[in-house]
């Protein structure tokens, strides 16, 4: 009985969100919904509206992105190992060549440490049309190299390799490089809707709370960059968020 209590206590403790001040990457701002301790999932998806942005720091190659993140390798947060996918207004090639337009992108960060491998990919050949909705999905395949599929509107475009399951943390919303960027407004926000994650053992998609009794599934306006301009609020609790930055 004591062992059982200890395990339950441990699970609850692991579910608590820790906001630790530290040496933040300079100038990154997030307005997101985040779930932690949502175990064990093998995929996630969201329906995202593609909106325009005025990137305040475009002269220094900044960007604004609406996207989805999933942790991997049984991690409770996305601090060391994750996959992310979405679209970005503004992007930079490895040699510094800067593009002001929109494109889909995805990132695969492999780590026991941080990072052992950070892979960044852009997909400028896929149409990324304004004011349209797109399904963004990341799904675990399995296999000896632990692959995950990257999907836009049901079409598989790429594969993230060497990422063991499971996902225990999922975030959705925006990320940008300037607190002065205009990306949605309170009256006309960006939207992430129909957010859900996939539990393979039950072959079922879940929206919102997946861990009975969990208290860690909520939207937060993450201000790790010190911005008071980042916002995320529930539109439909545990399913959809509105998010915007600046006004």
């Amino acid at each position, binding site marked *: 009985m004591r062992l059982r209590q200890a395990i339950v206590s441990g699970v609850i403790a692991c579910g608590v969100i820790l906001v630790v001040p530290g040496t933040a990457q300079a100038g990154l701002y997030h307005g997101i919904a985040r779930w932690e301790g949502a175990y064990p999932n093998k995929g996630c998806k969201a329906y995202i509206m593609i909106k325009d942005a005025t990137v305040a720091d475009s002269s220094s190659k900044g960007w604004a992105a609406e996207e989805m993140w999933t942790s991997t390798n049984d991690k409770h947060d*996305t601090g060391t190992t994750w996959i992310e996918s979405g679209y970005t207004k503004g992007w930079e090639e490895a040699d510094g060549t800067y593009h002001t337009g929109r494109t889909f992108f995805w990132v695969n960060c492999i780590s026991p440490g941080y990072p052992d491998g950070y892979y960044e990919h852009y997909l400028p050949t896929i149409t990324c049309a304004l004011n349209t909705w797109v399904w963004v999905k990341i799904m675990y395949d399995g296999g000896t190299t632990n692959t995950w599929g990257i999907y836009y509107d049901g079409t598989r475009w790429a594969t993230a390799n060497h990422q063991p399951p499971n996902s225990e943390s999922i975030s959705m919303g925006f990320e940008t490089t300037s607190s002065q960027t205009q990306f949605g407004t309170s009256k006309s926000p960006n939207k992430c809707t129909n957010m859900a994650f996939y539990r393979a053992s039950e072959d079922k998609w879940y929206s919102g709370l997946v861990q009975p009794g969990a208290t860690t599934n909520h939207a937060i306006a993450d201000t790790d960059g010190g911005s008071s301009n980042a916002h995320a609020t529930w539109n439909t609790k545990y399913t959809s968020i509105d998010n915007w930055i600046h006004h």
Partner: protein
Amino acid sequence: MKKMTRGTAVGASLALLAVIGGLAFVITAAQSTDVTPPPGWVVDKAKAVAEAYGDPHPSSIQWAQLPASEAAPLLGLTPGEAGAEYSRQVVVLVMQGTFEKKKARVPADAAKKGNPKGQWVVVNFDAVTHTGTDSYIGTIPVATTGLGFQEMTKF
């Protein structure tokens, strides 16, 4: 035992010279393949990448032009998928040095740890358009053996 005549000796010498000449040609040809200089635009890209990743003078720079599908594993891609299309040729740069990826796309948790850093950087550029869409930075060593990579003169 037969004595070698003068004519035979001259013939043998000429044959030997021809063999030596042929060998020299083969060696020279092989050497010239090994030292094929990269196109100017590739050198310019390499300099810009090194600068962008914070180490303007990497300890090693290798380059190769190859099908994107063959380069796929170096960049975390899968042959035939986006970025690694079978029909596309790419120039790949593999660098060793002390690198940092600025303006990396990292979630809120990881952002607290700062920018990704590593001793290895791999990037690609389309051989026709010169656009680069895929990159890697990290501590996992990159194996280029058998892919036709050549060392680029340091700058």
